[in-house]
């Protein structure tokens, strides 16, 4: 478990040696981007109104306070379930050249391919810690696709020391959660055999 500090713009060489289970802290630009924004780019073929190349996206729908005059304050922000974006992520990474995809829980084979082929990482911010995360957002510098409502707007954030981010898929395509799942499922079958001896309540 090594710790890295990354600053956008992020180049391939900055992340090539980072492996699953390592910890990353981020400085620079991170854009919230979730369900409908992915769909709009990939299925509706609408160009993303924010350039995320060599930057980070966060699968998240924050609570943002509108201060007026296009000024906003980040109140609470944390990751949402990344797996919901799996359907779109491979194509998303390919089209945008985003380098860090931050979210919650694991992602699947498409994202693994994307991380390997386009040199990117999927990372997990410990979910539910939304005030902690909000204090790492220095400023919201832009907001696009506001028609999607507060959770789905692309909030462009300037962050400092944003983390801990635990690497779940690395540039070799290794996948922490998929590895864990194999072990979890093996243990589950053993536990079911034990429990089922004790629950024959219908006789």
């Amino acid at each position: 478990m090594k710790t890295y500090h990354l600053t956008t713009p992020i180049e391939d060489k900055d992340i090539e040696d980072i492996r699953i289970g390592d910890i990353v802290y981020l400085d620079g630009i991170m854009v919230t981007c979730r369900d409908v924004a992915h769909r709009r780019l990939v299925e509706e073929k609408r160009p993303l109104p924010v350039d995320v190349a060599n930057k980070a996206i966060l699968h998240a729908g924050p609570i943002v306070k509108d201060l007026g005059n296009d000024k906003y304050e980040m109140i609470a922000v944390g990751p949402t379930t990344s797996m919901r974006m799996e359907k779109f992520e491979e194509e998303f990474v390919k089209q945008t050249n985003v380098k860090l995809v931050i979210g919650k829980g694991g992602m699947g084979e498409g994202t693994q391919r994307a991380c390997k082929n386009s040199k990117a990482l999927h990372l997990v911010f410990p979910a539910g810690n939304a005030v902690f995360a909000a204090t790492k957002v220095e400023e919201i510098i832009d907001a696009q696709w506001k028609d999607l409502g507060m959770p789905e707007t692309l909030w462009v954030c300037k962050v400092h020391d944003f983390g801990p981010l635990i690497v779940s898929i690395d540039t070799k395509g290794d996948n922490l959660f998929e590895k864990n799942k194999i072990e979890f499922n093996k243990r589950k079958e053993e536990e079911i055999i034990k429990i089922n001896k004790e629950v024959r309540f219908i006789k």
Partner: protein
Amino acid sequence: MLYEYTEPILSEQGSKMRDIMADYISVVSHRLPDDVAKKLKELAKIEVDPLQQLVYDTMRENQLLAEKMKRPSCQDTGALQFFVRCGSHFPLLGELNSIFKDAVYRATKEAPLRHNAVQTFDEYNTGLNIGNGIPSVFLDVPDDSDKIEIYVYMAGGGCTLPGAAMVLMPGEGYEGVVRFVMDQMTSYGINACPPLLVGVGVATSVETAAMNSKLALMRTVDSVSPNANAAKMEHLLEDGINNIGLGPQGFGGKKSVMGVNVVNTARHPSTIGVGISTGCWSHRRGKIDFDAELNYELPLNEGVEL
């Protein structure tokens, strides 16, 4: 499209209850109930690896910040759900739906809460955190008292809202219930923000089992079913799921759950309904009990006054 909402004209007592509820919803958004906070402290001591400790440290610091800054501790403040037991002589029974909806409307601005109501088929966010059927109010009128007990639950989109339920054949037995719960743990449960509070409902159909599983999440994490066999199953499932070793956030660890609660009701001879709802570690469940004069108690939040 625009969702039209006009604040209701409530009675004097109705307005008072609405204001208390709005204040309490804000408290629930930034403070975990006592039973959950205590359990998380215990679990944090058990996990010793640096990664697990880092996660638990982040959780601890987040809750301190949320309390200090009076902000929602997790950004997903859920689709609000109210599980209510109301005596038939509680004076505001007829105003309850309006009171709850307006309390959510006001708390959304004051807390602030996230806008989590998307009107289906028309597919637009109302921007108010209320919509058709949100908040959800589940009302039981068990007797003719003049009191009311209300559970307030911030049901999040990544944990408890994607529950599951199905109807088993009796031949599958309680072994089938175990399989259904355990399979959900290694698929959905990993992403539902462990350590989890697992609610299991056993009943006769999908909706009764699902409702029981939700009521199970309203029980405290260390509570035990009054039925001996159900209590046995709670214990077996808790050990079994812990031994899977999901750990905090599914990174692996010694513990997976804060607890397993089973709520059961009778079944038709041809069916076993089973439902599961997963509460995340940030299990923002509140309880407020009122008497007829609106004196209230907060049994899950010692030391809190509104």
